[in-house]
């Protein structure tokens, strides 16, 4: 059982993970790693939702987190399919190289 005192740490953890994820999206160049960083951001949101839900003694946060897990899975499916499709077209996997169209 988590005590109320752990709550700030949980929120801190989720903010920390969110920051790592956001920084990763901006810095990393491999689309698969970028997808993982997006997952990290979504799961940081999940931790915050569940922690708040526990703290507020309401189930809404947990239900929300379940929805997010499903949505995140759907997004990754499409993302990996696209990465595969681009790989088949014979391209290097680097988001900086995805610049067929320019300003």
């Amino acid at each position, binding site marked *: *059982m988590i005590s109320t005192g752990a709550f700030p740490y949980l929120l801190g953890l989720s903010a920390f993970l969110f920051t790592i994820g956001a920084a990763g999206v901006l810095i990393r160049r491999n689309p698969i790693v970028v*997808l993982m960083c997006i997952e990290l951001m979504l799961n940081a949101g*999940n931790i915050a939702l569940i922690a708040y839900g526990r703290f507020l003694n309401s189930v809404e946060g947990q239900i929300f987190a379940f929805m997010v897990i499903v949505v995140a899975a759907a997004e990754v499916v499409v993302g990996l399919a696209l990465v595969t499709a681009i790989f088949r077209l014979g391209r290097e996997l680097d988001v900086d190289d995805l610049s067929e169209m320019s300003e």
Partner: protein
Amino acid sequence: MLAQAVPIVPLVTPSAKDLLGLLPELILGGGFVVLMLLDLVVPARRRAWLAAFAFLFIAASFGACMWGWFDSGSGRALYFGSIAYDKYAMFINAVLLISAALVVIISPQYLNRRGLHYGEYYALILAATTGMMLLAGAMSLMVIFLAIELLSVSLYILSGFSRHEERSQEAALKYLLLGGFASGFLLFGMALVYGETGHTQLQQIEAALRVSTNVDPLLLAGVILIFIGLAFKASLVPFHTWTPDVYQGAPTSVTTFMSVATKVAAFAVMVRVFTYTFPAVYAHWQAIVFLVAIASMLVGNIAALTQTSVKRMLAYSGIAQAGYILIGVAVSPSEPLGTIGVLYYLAAYAVTNIGAFAVITVMAGRGEDLDSYAGLRGLAYRRPYVAAAMGLFLLSLGGFPPTAGFFGKFFVFAAAIKSGQTSLALWGIATSAVSVFYYLRVALLMYQRPAADQPEYQWSRSTFGGSAVLLATTAGTLVLGILVTLVYSAAAAAQGALLPVAAG
């Protein structure tokens, strides 16, 4: 220790009334499933049938919306306060369904020519529209998140629909990565707002904010993060970077759809969340929204000046238009005309922008998309009616009377002036003047003789569907520019019945 027992929620089931209120969305969602199954039995040569079926589902859903418009009265909440059944949602639904119907009509011809005629296309259009309609009615953070993801995931796939074309795949991946990034912000913002207010339903959040006296910084962070997430979807500066690439890379018929429908849905939810749920913290989010609106108008209009691709020009013009619409959102907590202006602008933008994109969709030849400015040169001598329609759409986007675009801008700027934000209106008027240059540049190009040494673009022959869509959008642009009261009174009724207010 926290209390051990989680309160047991009594088992409640939605009533028949809840289901009936959701009828427009249910019809489209059912249409999605039916089309996926039909795709298995319809022979490849007869894929146009799927378009006809999709159109039927959209028409049925539109009928349900019309019924809902009269039935919803002053509005009520469905599913224990999660979804709004009000005139506001029905107004947005009608705009979305008309957009989807127009896109479905021009699609078969375009997709055939590009060799992309797969059945999933129509199913995905219906799925995306369902998500957008749910978003228009969403009254719970959970429904907002799910609806945004439903429309986004469908649009990611549609953007990458041209499987063997690098540009299309690139567009889809960019859209997905940046869209997912935005979802991360949106979700984290929702988690913070939920945590600080204790509720996920907008009505309860609004009530909680109204009674609380001190404003928690975490709550404000949540509000701003939600705004960032929605601003990505509405392609507002500085969250617009994906827009030109995705619009250019995606198949033109898909661009037609998402340039309009995504924006309509994103602004619909933005008004419901920011104007009617967060008015208590208006003083804190006002400045940021103002800045984003001004930045969008400036960056969109200035970047559009230097483009040589029609799709990119329309993408930047869309960013600027989003800035104008955001003026309406920014002033609406203090001025109801702001919300009415947003609704009018969205309707006007929908018909005009679909018209403009429909021209380059239906005129696209067999090989390359009709995208470069050079491809439009001399269009008026070969297809005088199409060129005249395109000219009208460009004038409307530029805000000339008597077209739809003029009154969209007029109401939004009037709302800004009425609420005392004259500087915002002045920014809008000044940047509109800039926009005239690039709209007229394209319009004039169509009336120039093609250069002798340059071969003319091979425009495709007009078809019945394409002509019907151009005729409908032309009529819409003129009706919204001349018979203003028609849509204005509907928008005013929609604003009057917007739900979280009725509950307060």
